């Protein structure tokens, strides 16, 4: 294989992924806009309450641009998004981009924190279980992960609040003091990150274990053993890297989940994150906020998947030809 051909393949693969990314984004924007616009409920009535007069409501609707036709509002929104303008929140009366940029500094670090914790727990656990297959540590780890998968994260969260905030008083029960003091910020995200990480770690450890076990029965491992490597040498040198492909897929999916799916955890720890922003915006019918935040999350998920696709290609060059 000569270098130019390889380069061409990489470009072709990347362009293919990129065009499917753009199509996904266009479809997503249409779906998000139309679904959210058909939800019953008038934002103006919600804001002004039940004593509001009809003329007051009309005044507010025109102030918010709600008297414009749907198509006009859709294109305004998309054009705004392309220019990086997410519009103005109807209830908060501040730019949506400000709301998002405030909140992302809670949700993103929380997701990354949880992902790191879950990986740090899952990798050693999965590898240990696979290398001691059928042994006591395998049985213990598998039992623990079974529980981790079955128990919902909000339950972990409540138990941890009970133990570490109410009884031991090591952590506060919730809230986020900001990043002015990075240590305090990190501390306030610790309980939420652990509660998000535990179920994810359980899933990841199981995937890691089964993926490794599959690898260990492959011919190349047998060859490696035949060359004189011990079982654990073969595992570390050959199997772990090859077992990473399914694990990366799961990590990609988990990151998207952690970023968007922290709603309940953010609610329990009253963290000012993206999930809670969406939650509040939906009940207040602050549609512009919902649309823009959901679109941003979709964008992130699609980008993460795109990155995961590229990461596959890096781990396994054979995948590049299968665009």
């Amino acid at each position, binding site marked *: 294989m000569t270098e130019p051909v390889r380069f061409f393949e990489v470009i072709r693969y990347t362009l293919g992924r990129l065009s499917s990314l753009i199509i996904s984004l266009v479809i997503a924007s249409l779906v998000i806009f139309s679904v959210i616009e058909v939800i*019953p*409920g*008038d*934002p103006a*009535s*919600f*804001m*002004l*309450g*039940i*004593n*509001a*007069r009809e*003329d*007051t409501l009309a*005044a*507010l609707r025109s*102030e918010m641009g709600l008297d414009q036709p749907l198509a006009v509002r859709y294109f305004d929104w998309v054009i705004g998004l392309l220019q990086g303008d997410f519009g103005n929140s109807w*209830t*908060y*009366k*501040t730019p949506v981009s400000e*709301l998002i940029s*405030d*909140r992302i500094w*809670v949700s993103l670090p929380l997701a990354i924190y949880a992902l790191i914790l879950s990986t740090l727990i899952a990798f050693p656990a999965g590898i240990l279980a696979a290398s001691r297959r059928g042994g006591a540590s395998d049985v213990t780890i598998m039992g623990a992960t079974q529980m981790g998968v079955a128990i919902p994260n909000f339950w972990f969260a*409540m138990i941890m*609040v*009970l133990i570490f*905030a*109410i009884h031991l*008083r090591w952590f*506060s*029960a*919730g*809230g*986020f003091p*900001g990043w002015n003091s990075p240590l305090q910020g990190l501390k306030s995200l610790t309980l939420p990150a652990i509660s998000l990480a535990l179920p994810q770690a359980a899933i990841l450890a199981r995937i890691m274990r089964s993926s490794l076990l599959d690898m260990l029965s492959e011919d190349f491992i047998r060859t490696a053993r035949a060359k004189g490597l011990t079982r654990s040498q073969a595992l570390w040198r050959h199997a772990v890297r090859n077992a990473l492909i399914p694990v990366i897929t799961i990590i990609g999916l988990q990151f998207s989940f952690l970023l968007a799916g922290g709603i309940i955890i953010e*609610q*329990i*720890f*009253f*963290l*000012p*994150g993206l999930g*809670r*922003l969406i939650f*509040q915006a939906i*009940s*207040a*019918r*602050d549609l512009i906020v919902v649309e823009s935040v959901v679109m941003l999350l979709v964008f992130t998920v699609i980008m993460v998947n795109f990155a995961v696709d590229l990461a596959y290609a890096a781990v396994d060059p054979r995948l590049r030809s299968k665009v």
Partner: protein
Amino acid sequence: MRNLVFTVTATAVALLGGIASAQTDITVAIQLEPPNLDPTGGAAQAIDSVLYSNVFEGLTRFEGDGAVVPGLAKSWDISSDGTVYTFNLNSGVMFHDGTSMDAEDVKFSLDRARSEDSTNAQKGLFSGITDVSVVNSRTVKVTLDQPNGSFLFNMAWGDAVIVAPESIENIASNPIGTGAFTFSDWVQGDRLELVRNDSYWGTAAVLESATFRFISDPTAAFAAVMAEDVDVFVGFPAPENLPQFEADARFQVLVGNTEGETILSTNNKMPPFDNLLVRKAVAHAIDRQAIIDGAMFGYGTPIGTHFAPHNPDYVDLLGNSSYDPAKAKALLVEAGFPDGFSTTLKLPPPSYARRGGEIIASQLRQVGINAEISNLEWSQWIEEVFKAKDFGLSIVSHTEPMDIGIYANPEYYFQYDNPVFQALMIELNATADPVGRSALLAKAQKIISEDYVNGYLFELAVATVAKAGVRGLWVNQPTAAVDLTVVSWAD
């Protein structure tokens, strides 16, 4: 060495002194975050909870017991025909941006609230005003189209606070008022901070600073109070946990009343509820105490009409709708529904409605009425129930103070159309004499009780959980407010 001893002693004294002197900051939690900080441009109660009396003041204001007392206006004269109010303003009042508060600001605020493009959620409060004129910088004259006995009461609402033209543009994010606290910072989604206004015109606040936090989840609320992350929780959302706080010496629990008449709203135009006998049957089928015990863990006062029981003008009409399923069944037979009927029961999100709805549905089933429950979000509720009037029954707490006047509006969502009652309300508005008003209010309560317009359930209670050392908190909620101006810590 002597120096060192001195330093150590001085530090110890300073530390001890620091511990001994009372705390000067406070962290208050409420359930909902204000969507913005403009009390004159939205209905969200959370705006008033944070800002009323603390940051913004009106001509008059509510005290914790619901009394209306002078605010920015130190006194007023009312013309003999009751249509002209001349307000004398306090002197030396400054807005937080350093501009002075005078008659022009009052005129600006009232004119803005009643203007055509006003987005004031309670525009009705200002509808009788025909003219606001500045007599001099300390005196302002308000003319009404007809006498209005509740005008001073109306001016105490959070929607009627005085704002300044200089700062109005950014009021939603940077509220500038005249109150004892100035707005300092708002980290959206997390907390809002106020600091003491040291150039306040009245009695300065004791606290130097206050932080509001917003915790809506009942479990999180419990944890935050238990972990002492917050000093006060006003409107504590989990009544089931109150006994635990009462038993804990670290905390005090204040249970007070609100202006929230919780009613089984009934669509008076939708058959069979257009039949008085059917509405009466429903009233007798309801066991109020069981609802209060089951849905509110015992907190709440039963009511027999649409009026707050703590109001001196309240008339006890509970006897009109005593719990009597046999009588309810007989009334249904008399109304022509021996086998009962089916209807809808549409419930908004608060727990009084969701929990109460289950209990009411089962009580109605006992007399043969099948109420099909559907749970709605608030915005759906406003669309379906409030605007489209597409409902049989619903449960809502009407939290506006003194709102019996809604029964005079035939277009209002429960669609009660009684010319006698409507005439009575016109008479009430035109009556300023307290004795006369009392008599009219009593008559009004009786009419709607005997017409069984809605099922009257209970007056919503409000629970405040606070650290034992906090003094001066409002027990009751005559209006949505967390008035911190007289709050302090016990030494």
